[in-house]
């Protein structure tokens, strides 16, 4: 949502003269660039547990982060007050990074991006607001969702439904006199269910998260999530640990996009490459995976959890091709790394809140569809594993070793899905896995879950992928 400039100025009690004087204060020790990031975030939550919505609350987070750059060096401070005196003190603290003038300026100093935000281009308009609405209006959604889940399986013993929403008003200004504003909504519903079958206990969970208003709380979402959270519970009870070792892995469309996030996305974030730590630091312009593969990081998907009108440095949201036809064509840049590499920023400068300086971070990361059929990829595997439900992942940037935790999948034996498997970790090496991608199906899906990336700071992201076959990954097992 994009409101009027006056709304943000009134909210933060600033005007353009004050903003300008603060950036000048930040540059007084010789810094080359200063930016201000104002934030007013309101959070709301409701929790249904044991059949009743008995817990809820609201939270307010308000403040301004001030960053001063001296070349590639960063001075950062923040204030929870926007009084001129407090902000000036904050700017002086950030200014200390620059002990002498430097002649390297971040992107925008010489090519400022002017122009006001355009409400017509908003990627997350609100049909129904979260703020200013009685919390009681959301209770029926939680109650109906719980009832729908309960009626679907007699083995259910516990259901937790959590609704969390936040709306962030953002105002950004910098020493190049770029002024941007934005209001970012996020609604998330998560469900956790415990099942008992004889002496066995199993749990399942699902989530949905979008940059949108309360219109997401629909009957259609209730049916979709209720069906999703009970789907596959028979297989979960029947699942076994497979025999571990290296084997082909078919990754189902959608949530398997975690592979791209962990195995490649982080290694493409330009700060790791600027520092020389990434395993992809010297791979720009080189073939890193088979021809025909496109890997994208995208801030332009309307309503997506990773969508941005502007990143947290005021750079317009955009779609970035990281890999084109198998060739590494772009890292993910913030203003600092863009200057280092002599390219335009890609709109990936993101931060958890005003309490953090921005870093290059992913948005919605996915691979474009290929031409194969998912069933053909499965049929091509003699002995391997199929996975499509995950909880978390991790990567070691220098080595490129990545892992992701598989909640559910199947063994593949002689081209067919056979025994269900669960609770296994899979490990591989990013460059090796990319080069070993043996097939890409035509069924790209973006996962709608509440993915959060935790690289130093937590930011909302999403991921997607078509069904893919990787020749060799190490699968945990017995």
């Amino acid at each position: 949502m994009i409101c009027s400039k006056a709304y943000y100025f009134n909210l933060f009690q600033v005007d353009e003269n004050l903003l300008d004087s603060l950036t000048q204060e930040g540059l007084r020790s010789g810094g080359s660039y200063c930016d201000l990031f104002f934030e007013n975030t309101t959070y709301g939550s409701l929790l249904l547990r044991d059949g009743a919505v008995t817990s809820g609350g609201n939270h307010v987070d308000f403040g301004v982060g001030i960053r001063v750059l001296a070349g590639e060096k960063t001075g950062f401070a923040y204030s929870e007050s926007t009084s001129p005196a407090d902000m000036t003190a904050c700017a002086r603290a950030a200014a200390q990074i620059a002990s002498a003038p430097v002649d390297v300026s971040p992107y925008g100093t010489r090519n400022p991006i002017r122009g006001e935000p355009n409400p017509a281009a908003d990627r997350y308009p609100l049909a129904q607001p979260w703020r200013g609405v009685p919390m009681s209006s959301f209770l029926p959604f939680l109650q109906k969702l719980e009832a729908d889940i309960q009626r679907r399986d007699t083995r259910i013993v516990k259901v937790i439904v959590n609704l969390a929403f936040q709306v962030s008003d953002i105002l950004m200004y910098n020493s190049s006199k770029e002024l941007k504003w934005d209001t970012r909504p996020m609604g998330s519903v998560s469900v956790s269910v415990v099942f008992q079958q004889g002496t066995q206990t199993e749990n399942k969970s699902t989530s949905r998260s979008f940059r949108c208003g309360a219109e997401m709380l629909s009957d259609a979402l209730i049916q979709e999530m209720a069906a999703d959270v009970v789907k596959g519970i028979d297989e979960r009870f029947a699942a076994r640990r497979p025999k571990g070792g290296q084997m082909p892995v078919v990754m189902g469309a959608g949530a398997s996009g975690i592979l791209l996030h962990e195995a490649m996305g982080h290694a493409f974030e330009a700060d790791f490459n600027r520092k020389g730590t990434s395993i992809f630091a010297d791979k720009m312009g080189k073939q890193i995976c088979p021809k025909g593969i496109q890997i994208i990081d995208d801030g332009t998907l309307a309503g997506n959890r990773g969508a941005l009108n502007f990143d947290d440095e005021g750079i317009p949201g955009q779609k970035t091709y990281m890999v084109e036809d198998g060739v590494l064509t772009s890292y993910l840049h913030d203003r600092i790394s863009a200057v280092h590499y002599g390219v335009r920023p890609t709109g990936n400068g993101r931060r958890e809140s005003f309490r953090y300086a921005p870093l290059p971070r992913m948005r919605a990361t996915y691979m474009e569809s290929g031409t194969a059929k998912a069933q053909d990829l499965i049929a091509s595997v003699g002995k391997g594993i199929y996975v499509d439900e995950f909880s978390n992942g991790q990567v070691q940037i220098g080595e490129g070793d990545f892992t992701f935790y598989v909640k559910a999948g199947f063994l593949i034996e002689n081209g067919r899905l056979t025994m269900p498997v669960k609770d296994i970790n899979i490990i591989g090496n990013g460059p090796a896995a990319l080069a070993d991608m043996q097939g890409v199906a035509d069924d790209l899906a973006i996962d709608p879950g509440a993915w959060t990336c935790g690289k130093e700071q937590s930011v909302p992201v999403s991921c997607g992928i078509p069904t893919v076959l990787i020749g060799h990954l190490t699968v945990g097992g017995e």
Partner: protein
Amino acid sequence: MNALLTQQEIALAQHCLAYAQEQGAQGVRITLSKTLMNLIGLLNGQVDKTAHALDRSLQIQLLVDGRFGTFSSNRLEQKGLEEFIRDAIGTVRMLEADSYRALPAPERLVKNAVTGRELDLYDPAYDDLTAEQRREMALQSTAWPQPGLIAEEGEYSDSVFDSLTLDSQGLYARHTETSFEIGYESTVEDAEGNHLSSYWWDATPRLKDLKLKGCAEKAFRRAKEQIGPQGVPSGKYTLIVDNECAAKLLTPVLNALGGYSLQQKNSFLVDSLGKKLFPESLTILDAPLTQGDTGCRLFDSEGVATREMPVIEKGVVKTYFLNTYMSAKMGLEPTIEDITRAKVLPTGGCSTQEDVLQKVKDGILVTGFNGGNSNPATGNFSYGVEGFLIKDGKKVHPVREMLITGDFLTLWNNLVAAAQDARPCQSKLVPTLAFKNVDFSA
């Protein structure tokens, strides 16, 4: 800038407590907290970033007409907070009633946390630190340059945390703590151009105890040790877990003893109280009252007094972690909201990691985890690991891209040794551990 809570801020919290009751809340708990942090980041021996931050937050928990809600704000102006409280009370009234909600019984509340300094975790040296001294300490800690070291990132930081919890029964509980930290991540390159990284860190509540020198060198040494990894066959090995990362295998066990997991039956330790589910050799304590020990607290988030107690004693589960709400729901006596300072007692006659390696002779020493997770309902786990193949008590070569898989009850029942080398800077005091017959995939 005043790093500690001021009398004016405390008076504001007390006003909010009274105001919420005036507006109709029958039970109120307020936690006011303040953190001041300074950070100097280095990249390859040069200052790369600085950060300065002051955080304040007022959390309000309200019991209104049998209903409960939690609210917080960092906008600490009285008029705004009064409006916030009125809105919060209105919101709580919209929720469903919950007869299990209550403040803790007054006799369980802490009585001796008045100044915040009772545990001797506040270092007055913090008050005298200057920006220049911080910068100097950071610059002194670097190991850059070194042959083979291609990137070194370091951070020096210090902070002071001050919190006060009040409730409508008269609770007054303050905790004040300083922290000084140094951390490094080093990346080296082998002859084939492969990058290998490792880290090291130290933290302490007293500046004089901070090991500034040696941290960067240790991170570099740990990175170099990883050069030349070799594969090993999948199979069962003795798992030795370094004291730096051993807590990873204990945390899910402690989580499974938490009231929220148990009450929702999302725990592999449901109905475990009083049962001997672990080996005779395993004893885990909660030791929250040690003077000067990081992580110790006199009270939990409800203001309930902590105490020294066994969690698992000679293999027997001795306690759950139950706050007032969960204990009422489960019909059990309340204990403490969560473990404060977990401490695994030694077993197997080993003091050091060297002793453990000599005891087990062969196995795989895990020095780092790479992802993975566990299923709280079943206790099944699978983690990525890296470390060293051990033969005859010695490191043979590094290993990586491996996985360990199993379930926690079986794992802990295969405990063969726990040393006495827990790192005080860790939140849980878990020493080097050794477990037999663990499945490794490679």
